């Protein structure tokens, strides 16, 4: 639908209605208004430093929203901010924390006044402010930064050298080669159509235009056919101790793939699962992985493949993230959890996704490799393609086999 941009010819800024006719009496006094704005701006700054994307336009909307409400009621201050400044569920916890710190641990006089008013006689009904209890989010665990163990260092030998055995300088070379591998996931037909030489539906719009020349006689048939589009690729990487070296390289691979236009989602797991797709947008792969490792890994717990895949299926798979997609799992299959959980999760995953590829570095170059760990044996019936992923040539193999997975 490339033509969609031409429908709208002019752009105007969104209307901000005049609030003077409806403004709350509390805001009529200019001095109180200015103090409120000052407070809101400081609050916005706090939110920004906590990682929320709050622009000055958002603050303007926030102030306009409060002008509709009662700014002396802390509940209104809370909810107006939450509805205007928070744009995704994961940010609610951060907002709550900053709000609590800023308004309930009030230091400046105007804020203190707001808090005093919150339960006072001027407040409207149901004024008590209940900030919903929130779970611990990754943001709150940001403090600690676990450092992953650093790995020890002619192109053809590199190709078949296991990542774990590479020296740092060799790894740099590996990555340079990796950046050149192009991932071309198999394609699927979408429901969108485009003009085509022959197709399934008539391009009536074009036919009407053309038939005017022939006095309404449809002389020629014009067709539209369904467009094709790459299937999404979902990488689920094991970042536990034994797997970290391999996963890093696969992540670098994913990073290169992501820039090559295909839709790629990336998740990491140790004992828990976390999504790092968004972080890859603005972090280097190593930083993203190190950050992810600090949030997904309880060093005590060992690897929980089953429960991690289960939470992937529950939180992301069911909502359609991997529907019609290629799921690539990179893990050695050493699961500390209940094999039944892994089996159930794999079964569901197989139903939700289009194909499952499992990369097990322990497979190595061994063609007759049979999975020996319990986890791998349980997962095997649901795997469409088992690769090693331990060296560059096996990643090239993945890239070359991917288009044929259709």
């Amino acid at each position, binding site marked *: 639908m490339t033509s969609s941009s031409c429908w709208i010819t002019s752009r105007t800024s969104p209307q901000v*209605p005049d609030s003077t006719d409806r403004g709350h009496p509390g805001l009529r006094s200019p001095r109180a208004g200015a103090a409120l704005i000052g407070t809101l701006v400081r609050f916005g700054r706090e939110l920004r430093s906590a990682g929320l994307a709050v622009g000055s336009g958002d603050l303007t909307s926030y102030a306009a929203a409060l002008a509709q409400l009662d700014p002396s009621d802390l509940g209104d201050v809370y*909810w107006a901010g939450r509805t205007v400044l928070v744009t995704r569920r994961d940010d609610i916890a951060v907002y709550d924390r900053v709000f609590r710190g800023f308004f309930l641990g009030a230091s400046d006089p105007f804020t203190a006044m707001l808090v005093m008013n919150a339960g006072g006689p001027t407040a409207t009904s149901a004024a008590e402010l209940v900030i*919903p209890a929130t779970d611990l989010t990754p943001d709150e665990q940001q403090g600690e930064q676990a450092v992953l163990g650093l790995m020890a260092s002619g192109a053809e030998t590199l190709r078949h050298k296991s990542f774990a055995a590479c020296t740092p300088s060799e790894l740099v070379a590996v990555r340079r080669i990796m950046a050149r591998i192009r991932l071309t996931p198999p394609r699927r037909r979408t429901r*969108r159509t485009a003009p085509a030489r022959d197709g399934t539906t008539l391009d009536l719009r074009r036919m009407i235009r053309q038939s005017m020349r022939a006095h309404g006689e449809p002389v020629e048939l014009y067709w539209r056919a369904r467009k094709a589009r790459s299937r999404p690729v979902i990488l689920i990487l094991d970042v536990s101790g034994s797997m970290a070296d391999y996963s890093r390289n696969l992540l670098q691979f994913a990073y290169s793939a992501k820039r090559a236009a295909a839709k790629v989602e990336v998740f990491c797991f140790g004992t828990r699962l976390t999504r790092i797709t968004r972080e890859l947008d603005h972090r280097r792969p190593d930083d993203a992985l190190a950050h992810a490792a600090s949030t997904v890994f309880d060093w005590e717990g060992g690897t929980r493949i089953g429960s991690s895949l289960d939470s992937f299926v529950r939180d992301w798979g069911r909502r359609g*993230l991997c529907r019609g997609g290629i799921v690539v799992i990179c893990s050695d299959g050493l699961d500390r959890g209940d094999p039944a959980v892994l089996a159930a999760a794999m079964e569901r995953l197989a139903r939700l996704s289009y194909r499952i590829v499992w990369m097990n570095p322990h497979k190595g170059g061994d063609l007759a490799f049979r999975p020996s760990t319990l986890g791998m044996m349980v997962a095997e019936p649901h795997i469409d393609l088992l690769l090693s992923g331990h060296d560059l040539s096996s990643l090239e193999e993945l890239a070359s086999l991917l288009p044929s997975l259709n």
Partner: protein
Amino acid sequence: MDRPDTVADLTAALRRGGYLADRGLATALFVAIGLHRPVLLEGEVGVGKTEVAKVLAAIFGRQLIRLQCYEGIDTSQALYEWDYARQMLHIRALSEQQIADPDAVDKLFGPKFLLERPLLEAVRAGERAVLLIDEVDRADDEFEAFLLEVLSDFQLSIPEIGTIKADSPPLVVLTSNRTRELHDALKRRCLYHWIGYPAAEREVEIVLLKEPGVGEALTRKVVFAVQRLRELDLAKPPGVAETIDWARALSFLGADDLDVAAAGETLGAVVKERDDLELVLDNLADITAGA
């Protein structure tokens, strides 16, 4: 009702319309109405996201215009389409001379042959309408980009006719089940509210409001059981819609208490996945034990 004066007014009006909104939701809607901003509602399945728009339309006496999104939706389904069959007939009916007339094409692509689709209809209706853009996460990102343009100034251009602009924008409610993350740019145009599962007391109120025929004692047991189900590790936890369905099913069958037998027979109203069903059947006595 024209426009609510306070959040409490709006809450009361929604309640009269059969919808119990908590303070957060009511505030979001109130601000959306006041600032003419679209409101994006996200939440689990069956917590009443779509219902909000319907009730808003009813209490303000506005027309509800619904755009159901799906993969591959494009402008001809969302915006407008030409009535090709009529155009074709019209051309055939024209004489030689009429066809040579330079205005013939203009007439062919005039209002007479235009089929309005929901977005155009909503822009034309302006503030007389509530526009519900349902399950926007199901549409693909190309459509999202297009939607962004419409929602930013409620103005559409049809090349053959010209620009159509809403005098005052309609009230827009978007819903999403979060099957994918929406683009930030679209979210920035909207107010955002997350609707979670209600607390037990609130859920009892909701069921009683929706299904007054069901006794309060039964309602309480059903709600308690559903809350237990949500604590269980189900793949698809039941929403409020399922609670209402279950209560309705039980009362339809004449049950006045939720015991293991009655629950087992009607479980299909709340649990809709085989694996979940097995898990629930194992714990049925516990679930129906009551508060």
